């Protein structure tokens, strides 16, 4: 562990402040709570919100998993996992089932999460309405009054123009039938996993200084129309490595003549399936 820094880097006062914000967030599911985000030794936009949330909830007996794009071995996931290994000395793992805290950027693991796990999302833009209304003060009023017609206008326009909703990631959701929420830039494919998830879901946006949460078993509905129901999409292929037809796939170019393969974005899920097949 690093000398000269507190357990998990942040001082205890700051962690308490963040935990107070987390408690508020859990009490009002999907509602953005402003918090005094600290300046972290990693750049804004690279997971400072998720790191602060993880730091505030991490205990010595925790086992941490960090993924980026579903993979444990992408450089930013490595960098963040190292940060906590260095500043907190906690155990780390790449196995979803063994982790007590999972920090993620852009994916929800394929393996169903349990009630004794917490998933922490890194959030670049917590405000779901920002593309339609750039003023955060105006957005706040719209949340207070639950005025979300504008978001439906956007869906209406997509269908009128393309015959379907053209949002493929960070697809807006209604939490607990009250607050419109940005699920962070996970693919829309992952949205159904949020609904009534047994694990606690925490969201940290460092640059925008907001925290929000979805308590276990809370209703999370992707916005849609009765006659154009929400549909999660994935590439219509099987994983080249493990053969999965259910998991979210990354497309990998294999040559410059159009050759490509599809492989699971969740590396732990894929490796587990490959081991089972080999056994």
């Amino acid at each position, binding site marked *: 562990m690093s000398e000269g820094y507190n357990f998990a880097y942040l001082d205890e006062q700051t962690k308490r402040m963040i935990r107070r914000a987390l408690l508020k967030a859990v009490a009002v599911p999907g509602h953005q709570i402003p918090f005094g985000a600290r300046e972290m030794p990693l750049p804004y936009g690279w997971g400072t919100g998720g790191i602060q949330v993880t730091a505030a909830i991490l205990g010595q007996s925790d086992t941490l998993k960090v993924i980026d794009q579903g993979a444990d071995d992408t450089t930013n996931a490595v960098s963040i996992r190292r940060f906590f290994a260095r500043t907190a000395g906690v155990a780390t793992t790449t196995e979803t089932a063994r982790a007590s805290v999972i920090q993620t950027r852009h994916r929800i693991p394929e393996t169903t999460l349990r009630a004794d796990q917490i998933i922490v999302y890194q959030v670049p833009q917590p405000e779901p309405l920002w593309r339609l209304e750039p003023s955060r003060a105006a957005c706040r009023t719209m949340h*207070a*009054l639950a*005025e*979300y*017609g*504008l978001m*439906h*206008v956007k869906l*209406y*326009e997509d*269908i*009128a*123009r393309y015959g379907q909703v053209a949002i493929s990631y960070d697809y807006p959701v209604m939490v607990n039938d009250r607050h419109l929420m940005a699920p962070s830039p996970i693919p829309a494919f992952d949205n159904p996993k949020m609904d009534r998830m047994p694990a606690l879901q925490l969201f940290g946006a460092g640059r925008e200084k907001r925290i929000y949460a979805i308590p276990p078993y809370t209703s999370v509905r992707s916005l*849609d*129309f*009765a*006659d*154009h129901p929400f549909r999660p999409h994935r590439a219509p292929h099987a994983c080249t490595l493990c053969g999965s037809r259910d998991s979210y796939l990354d497309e990998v170019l294999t040559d410059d003549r159009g050759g490509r393969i599809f492989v699971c974005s969740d590396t732990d899920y894929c490796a587990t399936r490959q081991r089972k097949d080999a056994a």
Partner: protein
Amino acid sequence: MSDDTLLSARDLSLSFGTLRALDGVDVDLWPGEVLAIVGESGSGKSTLLNVLAGRLTPDQGHVFYRDPDGHLADLHAMSAPALRALHRSDWGFVQQDARAALRMGVSAGGNVGERLMAKGARHYGEIRAEAARWLEMVEIDPGRIDDLPRIFSGGMLQRLQIAATLVTHPRLVFMDEPTGGLDVSVQARLLDLIRRLVGQLGLAVVLVTHDIAVARLLAQRIMVMQRGRVVEAGLTDQVLDDPAHPYTQLLVSSVLQA
């Protein structure tokens, strides 16, 4: 106020610095009635409209609105969410500048559908059918449902604003110079349309205009304002044919001369 008024205001006063914009104004509006508020610019008529619609708070006086269940509510004592809900459903507001009221980057259908969706409509096909029906009602070719208002003419924009306002069947509509800034021929068509829709839907309207001719065509009753006070009020034909107050006489004669 009587038991059946839709909207009643008593003793409204409002000053901006030393300017008395409203000075002891009373208003009564019955269901299905069109009331015109006329006067020159600076007479306080737009301020009155904004106070009646809950957009401005008076220094003194009250505005009461009777909801569909018959309960009277003091507008300026209502919570912000309740007032917004009223504006979203039971009320409508048509302003002079349609460009400011509409979303210019959203299709005509999306503009008309917004109020439906804000009220909870979640069936795309039904929303679209209703939007198309309303475009037809305001004499816009339903084939233009996916066009952006950006390419619409001034008269079409105003008709689109009316469709986007009336689509939820409000009971009360506030109109602020709805025909202002349009060519005379476009104005005539729009006035015809408004008169027809108001009759068909049985709307109550508070109409602010500086144009006596517009008031004569649309309103059953009229209030003439000067320097924040109501100088004369009554049935439109009576007031305009036989004005009692010198200021009303001046307004009427200036139109006749024109």
